[in-house]
């Protein structure tokens, strides 16, 4: 069965430092991977996706994610964190051989400290 794991409930990073939010997945075929961000009292905003091709995917707000097939990981990264990046981040997977629905991870709360 498809699943997504975000091993960290919360990540604290000082402003200006690089940040990483971890995600690992389990699907039977080649996965489609997504990152969404949720700000307080707001909906889910699409950040980036990996479908095929270059393993390093660039998305909105300076975020990027690296697909690593051997480690079944899709970690979200940003070279220099901003306080405004503080939010809840969800990794998600869709198994293209199955159906359309997205399976979300439990979410990681990112705190950027001024």
């Amino acid at each position, binding site marked *: 069965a498809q699943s997504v794991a975000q091993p960290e409930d919360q990540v604290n990073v000082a402003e200006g430092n690089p940040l990483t939010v971890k995600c690992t997945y389990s699907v039977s075929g080649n996965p*489609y991977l*997504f990152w*969404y961000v949720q700000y307080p009292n*707001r*909906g*889910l*905003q*699409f950040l980036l*996706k990996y*479908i095929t091709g270059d393993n390093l995917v660039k998305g909105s707000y300076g975020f990027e994610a690296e697909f690593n097939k051997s480690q079944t990981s899709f970690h979200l990264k940003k070279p220099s964190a901003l306080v405004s990046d503080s939010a809840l981040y*969800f990794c998600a997977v*869709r198994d*293209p*051989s199955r*159906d*359309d*629905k*997205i*399976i*979300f*991870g*439990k*979410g990681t709360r990112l705190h950027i400290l001024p």
Partner: protein
Amino acid sequence: AAGVIQSPRHLIKEKRETATLKCYPIPRHDTVYWYQQGPGQDPQFLISFYEKMQSDKGSIPDRFSAQQFSDYHSELNMSSLELGDSALYFCASSLGTSGRAVKTQYFGPGTRLLVL
């Protein structure tokens, strides 16, 4: 650019009442998904529609039903509401194509339902 619209944004109901949530997808999007996000939880897939037909079904209770109309908007009907139905209900839309093209889902702002 136009986004997914959901109404109402907030809804308060009492137990055993009914509620109807509406979702208006991004123009030209033909696929709609419903998700439920409980307090402190990750979003859970409920149901989806493609071209007005149910395309997938997740953890949607039998008390809930949904449909997609000819203009592609969708409504989630919830009956016999329970306290545990209090959650944020998201709608997402995507543009479906034939074959296995990736359909990025774009989410609406959600409807926050509180059942008292």
